[in-house]
Each structure stands twice: as C-alpha cells, then as structure tokens.
C-alpha cells in the first residue's frame, strides 16, 4: 500500500497535477507517524510512511492547506472522506485546490492496546497474515491484528469513500450492521444515577487540553467560544465538575449534525475519555427522532438542526 501511494504521489508531483502531498511522515517508533506535507520527490522518498498506525484524519489540515498556492494531494481513508465532505459543505475547504486519493482501509491499530497487553519498550512492529509481531527490549510477541484494532475501527460505520478523485485499493460499502451505538444503548439502559456516576468518572479526568476540540474536523471555528473572553463562557481550565460538563455538552451540541463520527476526539484524548459516546448519543437521537442522517455523506442534504418538520416530536 505504502509503495503504491508513494508511487502515485511521485507521479502526480512529477506531472504537475499537484505541488504538495499531505500524508504521514515516519516517526521514532513503528507507531508514531506525524501528518506531514511533502513538497519534493526527495522528501517523499525520505519520509513518507503509511501503515496501520496512520490513524490521523488529515481532512482538517486542508482548511489551511487548500488556501495555499497550488494543488495539494491528500490521502483519505473512508471515514476521513465524510469529514472532507462535511468541511466542503461548510465551505471550509477549497475543493479545486485538492486532489483526493481515497485509500482502502480495514481498520487502524491502536498502540495503546498493545501497550495495555504489557508490551513495553517496543522497538519494532511487523504485520503479516493478520498478525503483528511486536519486538520489544523485553522480547517479542505475536498479536492478532483485531486485538490491536482501534475501538472506533471495530465499530466502523463505512468502508465507502464518499468523495475522491481516484482510489487506491478497493472501495467498500457502508457497514449496515455496525454496532457503534451499542455502548450508548447500554448507558441509556442504566438508571440516571448510574449514568451520572459513569460520566462523572469519565469527565472528571478531563484536563481541558483541548486535544479533542483541536483535532475535530467539525470544530473549525476561527475562535472557539470557550477561548473567547467576550463570549461570556470562556474557560481555560475545567475548574470543577460543572465546567467539565459545560465544555463537553456544548462542544457536542455545537458539532451535532456536523460530527461525522470519525472518532478522532477519543483517539487523541490523553485521559482516555470516551468522548465519542457524547457525539454518538446526538447522532443516535437525531436518527431516531428525525430520520437517518449521516453527516458528510451527502453535502446537499439538510442537517437535522437546519430543518424541521411540522410533526416533530416534542422536547
């Protein structure tokens, strides 16, 4: 896969179709790739990497990148294409300046899962036949790929690219039997006291680092209300439980109907708070109340909070 992507990127750079390539660059370890822009063939050959740990959704970078001179090539996984479409619908990116290569995806790995298995001191990870051989300073171990798969990928909603200029690999289908609302349902089935205790336990860990917000493709405001001293609700730290709730409720509300459920918020949370469960609650409710809606699927479809029907359920 990496070879094919690199080859296409080199070709498109060479024939002038694009002047820059947005992908991932190699890290210190086998799993810590950083999103990067490559401008020359040398840079690409030197640093371009694509593997199962390239989970970052690159679409949000296009807000900035598509406003620069020249066309940029971007590699998007199926779930990233939904974010891309949503950004497009919100006029945040300039389509003409972007060349999208859709790349097939069968789920990304989460190094945290490997570490939770006690794999410390990782020096190498090799993928073969659905298994990872993880080499560490303490010895090596083989792990089934699905055991290391990121939570969000286990509940993948779609393997279909909703937008692309060309594809590398196969285009998949929308996953109709995905189980992404299971945990929401479990929470709904609890008593309010249990739910309160659950969320207190989770949200009290928040350190308000804003990683969830800053990585979120829907959170693309010029300035967030929580950073704006004039908004009247600015807060720099979650001083107490109220502010933790306030930040996460309002953030989820602000992205309701715009969140594509890409799962980046939970991926990046340094405190492992399952933030996606807030967004999924809104998604599940909107589906149930107002009919199925998948943000980013069809940029022309009216979002649930941008329309109404006379017979909507009462609040």
């Amino acid at each position: 896969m990496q070879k094919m992507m690199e080859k296409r990127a080199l070709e498109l750079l060479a024939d002038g179709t694009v002047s820059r390539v947005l992908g991932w660059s190699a890290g210190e370890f086998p799993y810590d790739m950083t999103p990067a822009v490559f401008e020359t063939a040398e840079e690409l050959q030197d640093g371009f990497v694509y593997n199962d740990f390239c989970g970052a959704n690159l679409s949000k970078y296009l807000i900035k990148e598509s406003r620069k001179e020249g066309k940029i090539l971007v590699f998007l996984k199926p779930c990233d294409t939904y974010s891309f479409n949503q950004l497009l619908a919100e006029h945040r990116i300039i389509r003409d300046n972007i060349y999208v290569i859709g790349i097939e995806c069968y789920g990304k790995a989460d190094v945290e899962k490997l570490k939770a298995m006690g794999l410390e001191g990782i020096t190498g990870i090799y993928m073969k036949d659905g298994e990872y051989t993880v080499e560490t300073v303490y010895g090596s171990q083989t792990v089934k790929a699905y055991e290391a798969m990121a939570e969000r990928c286990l509940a993948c909603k779609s393997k279909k690219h909703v937008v692309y200029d060309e594809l590398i690999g196969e285009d998949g289908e929308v996953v109709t039997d995905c189980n992404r609302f299971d945990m929401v349902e479990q929470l709904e089935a609890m008593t309010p006291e249990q739910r309160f205790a659950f969320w207190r336990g989770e949200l009290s860990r928040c350190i308000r680092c804003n990683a969830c917000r800053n990585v979120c493709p829907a959170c693309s405001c010029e300035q967030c209300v929580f950073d704006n001293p004039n908004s009247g609700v600015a807060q720099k730290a979650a001083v107490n439980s109220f502010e933790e709730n306030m930040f996460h409720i309002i953030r989820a509300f602000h992205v309701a109907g715009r969140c594509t459920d890409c799962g980046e918020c939970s991926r990046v949370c340094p405190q492992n708070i399952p933030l996606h469960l807030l967004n999924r609650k809104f998604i599940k409710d909107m589906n149930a109340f107002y009919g199925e809606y998948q943000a980013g699927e069809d940029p022309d479809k009216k979002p649930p909070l941008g329309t109404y029907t006379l017979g909507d359920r009462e609040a």
Partner: protein
Amino acid sequence: MQVTEYKPKIVAFCCNWCSYAGADGAGSARLSYPEEVKIIRVPCSCRVNPMFILRAFQRGADGVIIAGCHPGDCHYTSGNYFTRRRMALLFSMLDYLGIERERTRVEWISAAEGAKFSKTMTEFCATVAALGENKRLEDLRCKK
C-alpha cells in the same frame, strides 16, 4: 424551631409574542403561580441557547423552562420548530449524562393562555421542588 420550606429557583425563558404575553395574561387575570418563577423575555424561543440553560443551572437555578408559541403560530414562522429540535436533543443529552430530565422543559403557551401559563408554572415548580436542589449541574463557587 422554624422550618424553612425549600424553594427552587426557576428560570422561565418566554418568547415575546406568545408566552410572555401569556404570562401577562396570567397577571391580568390574577392567576397566581409561585414567585420562584422568574421570567426572562426573549424575542423567540429559538433565541434560547443551550448555554443559557447550563448557565442558569451553574448560577443556582433548579429548573429551567422555555415557553414559546404553539407550533405553527411562531411570530417568525419557524423559530419554535428549531427550538423543539434543539431542546429535544439537549434534554436527551442531559438525561444521558444522568441529569434529571424533569428539571428542563419546553412548553407552548399562547398569548391567550394565561391560565395555562399559571398552571404550567405551578406544576413545573412542584416537579422541581420534589426533585430538590440541583446538585448534578451545580457550580459550588456560585453557592453562598
């Protein structure tokens, strides 16, 4: 020993055209409701931002009610329809977080429904009073 009866704090956001007028109607008809209810006038129920609701709870409110024109009667044609969707989602989310759902409510009260205004507020006050003080969305800094 004097027992002080617990009195909840209720914020009522009322749209200017229907519910605020309904509250005026309740007044004109001398239809009482608990003094715990304090009304904030907004042009339309759709002006009510979820942030205002959370803010009220932070500052010590025990219940928040939004009152607007009946669906179809909005002065701005569509405002209350948006209110209905937004609040349905917000209230469901609060419930999901384990915050008592009964503390929040949306009611449609027309300018002619002074009696309904009074009845709704009385009933809402009783519901909130039964729940007791808002603990789950409180901000201790704002308590005296």
